[in-house]
């Protein structure tokens, strides 16, 4: 009994540690004061002002657009790559997998400065598209790593069977192979989308003047004080994701039953 209590107490403490900052963030989105630290009463005005704030809304739009474009690009590039790598001889294949893991272990800051050096070197203008290129670069490996295992699990006779039954190679791919590896493709895409949304460092180094993502905007605010409007935005995002996760979990439980 005591042992069990100790276990839950420990877990509880860790969760308090994990959620304390988030709870504080959410509470201050309802605080009727520009400054943190003192509670001046409940308000919803930050939520109203958030929608009217052009620069935050622009940054949000950029963040989402960049995440959509780069996760899509990374997924197409990465899925093609996984299929190509899977068709290679084992030795070449292993080399390619090692090569894929390389950027995953690199410190983000090195990726950021080296891409900056590349863009400046070839004269690519820094801004929206340089961020997209960078995001595709650090997302692709995750797609490859997510899709490859699905290809290994695939029955090697499946494609032949489809073609024996009269499917063209492209039909065999779109109607038989792709649906089989789809879970891996989706995992890769979701992972890319999340990584892109949350990225600060690489965007920070490869952006040009005037193009902000949310993370860059927040960073520039941390020096002078983050407006409660950002707290409001975070609260909205957090609640949305929490709801989504709970719905998915609920659905999975129903399926199990």
């Amino acid at each position: 009994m005591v042992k069990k209590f100790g276990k839950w107490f420990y877990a509880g403490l860790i969760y308090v540690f994990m959620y304390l900052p988030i709870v504080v963030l959410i509470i201050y989105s309802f605080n009727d004061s520009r400054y943190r630290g003192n509670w001046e009463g409940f308000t919803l005005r930050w939520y109203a002002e958030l929608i009217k704030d052009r620069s935050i809304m622009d940054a949000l739009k950029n963040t989402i657009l960049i995440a959509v474009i780069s996760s899509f690009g990374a997924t197409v590039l990465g899925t093609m790559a996984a299929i190509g790598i899977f068709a290679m001889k084992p030795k070449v294949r292993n080399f390619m997998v090692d090569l894929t893991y390389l950027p995953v272990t690199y410190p983000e800051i090195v990726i950021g400065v080296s891409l900056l050096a590349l863009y400046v070197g070839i004269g690519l203008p820094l801004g929206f598209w340089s961020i997209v290129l960078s995001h595709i670069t650090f997302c692709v490996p995750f797609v490859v790593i997510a899709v490859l295992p699905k290809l290994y699990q695939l029955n090697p006779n499946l494609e032949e069977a489809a073609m024996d039954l009269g499917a063209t190679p492209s039909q065999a791919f779109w109607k038989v192979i792709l649906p089989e590896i789809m879970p891996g493709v989706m995992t890769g895409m979701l992972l890319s989308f999340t990584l892109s949304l949350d990225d600060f460092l690489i965007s920070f180094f490869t952006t040009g003047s005037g193009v902000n993502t949310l993370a860059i905007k927040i960073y520039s605010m941390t020096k002078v004080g983050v407006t409660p409007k950002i707290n409001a935005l975070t609260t909205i995002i957090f609640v949305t994701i929490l709801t989504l996760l709970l719905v998915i979990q609920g659905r999975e439980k129903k399926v199990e039953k």
Partner: protein
Amino acid sequence: MEKKKQGLAIPYIAWTVIFSIVPLIIILVYSFCERTPYGDIVFKFTTENYVKFFQPIYLKVLWRSVVLAVSSTLACLLIGYPMAWIIARAGDRARNFMVMLFVLPLWTNFLLRTYAWMGLLRENGFFNQLLMAIGLIHQPLKMLYTDGAVMVGMVYNFLPFMVLPIYSVLVKMDQGHIDAANDLGADPKQTFLRVILPLSFPGIVSGIIMVFMPALSTFIISDLLGGGQTMMLGNLIQNQFLSARNWQFGSAISSVMIVMVLITTLISGKYRGEGSEMLW
């Protein structure tokens, strides 16, 4: 047919060469280049950028980064291992929920979570007020802008990356091994040290890599929670590229960092074995 399929990897290979390999070569080349007084890059071989890095002032930054990264990684391991164990041993439903609770904070912006810690640690912040309210201290402690604050920030941000890989090894561990050890007369301590710990080693190694690398190169956490005082390698690189406009020196520091990463990866690769793909 197979040949045609292999061709699908060509765009990816080209992409990797252009956006991953060429940039690293550029950094490496820059790190050996001379600099004009105005900060322009002169393509003339020199080792002065590396010589500069091995001056005491910069070696101190390196040392501090390594010490802070190692201690945060150790703290994550000591705090995270029991947590991973508790989650792995929980009932099916509780387990999924507990894992979800651990991943959820990762979906809120990492800058904001770190910024929130600034509020918690400042002089009139939550912790000082709490400690004063229960009478443990009478004057506010200086918590923010210390190495301790940087460590708290790192443990906070990187703990999930330690807990999740260890958890995924522990949850797959065969209960039979533990029962067998008990039946053969091992006490709980022996069972842990001789059976559970060695079996969870791949997860521990994955966790250590996933915490140590970002901890070594972070510049946000030290920037926000350490104030100007805690200069780490990441801050140094950022300064050289964005304020000091000394790309050659920044490149040299980046190259040193790459070498450190390669060494760590090589060492851990030996022990990693099957654990490496546990996360995916």
